[in-house]
């Protein structure tokens, strides 16, 4: 029974249509090309851009705050 069950489970219970690949590919050609995969390098670049932008914002705010401090002192 053990072997019977194993071979039954190992056998194909449904069959693959002969034209299955062609059928899938017909649909694939109708769909847009997937976006390029993001690598760790891409992610690192994004991280660097966001980090730099944040630093820039801090600098800008401290500059504005400096001007405000000087002008309100008088």
């Amino acid at each position, binding site marked *: 029974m053990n072997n019977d069950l194993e071979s*039954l489970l190992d056998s194909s*219970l449904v069959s693959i249509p002969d034209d299955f*690949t062609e*059928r899938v*590919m017909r649909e694939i050609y109708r769909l847009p090309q*997937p*976006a*390029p*995969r993001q690598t760790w390098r891409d992610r690192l670049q994004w991280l660097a851009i966001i980090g730099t932008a944040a630093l820039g914002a801090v600098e800008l705010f401290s500059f504005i705050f400096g001007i405000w401090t000087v002008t309100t002192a008088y």
Partner: protein
Amino acid sequence: MDIKAILKRIEKGDRSAFALVVRQFQQPLFGYLGRMGLTQSLAEEIAQETFLRAWMRLDDYDPLRAEFSTWLFTIARNLALNELERASSKREVTQDEFLPDSVCEAKPPWDALDQNQQRQRLINALHTLSVTDRSALALAYYQELDLTAIARIEGCSASAIKVRLHRSKQRLRQLLEKRDE
């Protein structure tokens, strides 16, 4: 051909390379869907949808996180489970709906009869298992997936998968033996 090389070709804009992915994975995918107890037409529908979703989400696939087969079978499992749950919630589904459409293949009727009867009994027995147990069992017969990969697809631990597989096989054996008597 190595899957990484195929994916590189696709990334460069070669759509036709996806046919290699389909050819490489259609056999294990149909095997899985058959063991899930799906009909021929449903298996075809879900297999096609699996490949189309894989294409559309190809940019989500991260080779550092999982093997391509693990990722692909996760998509197939989710689609199959949704389909089976949708069917069971409808309650209109009769046991006949899950009988394979293609039990008659090009074999002599008498030779094929016993094999087809055995398959039919197996399919009926598979339907007594829960869909998640059935899925784990169906995945276990794809040689490329080890216990860790199956556990990842099923969203549980490898030891839990081991227990589920043992329990499912025991149940199937009992059911098939009972009917042999």
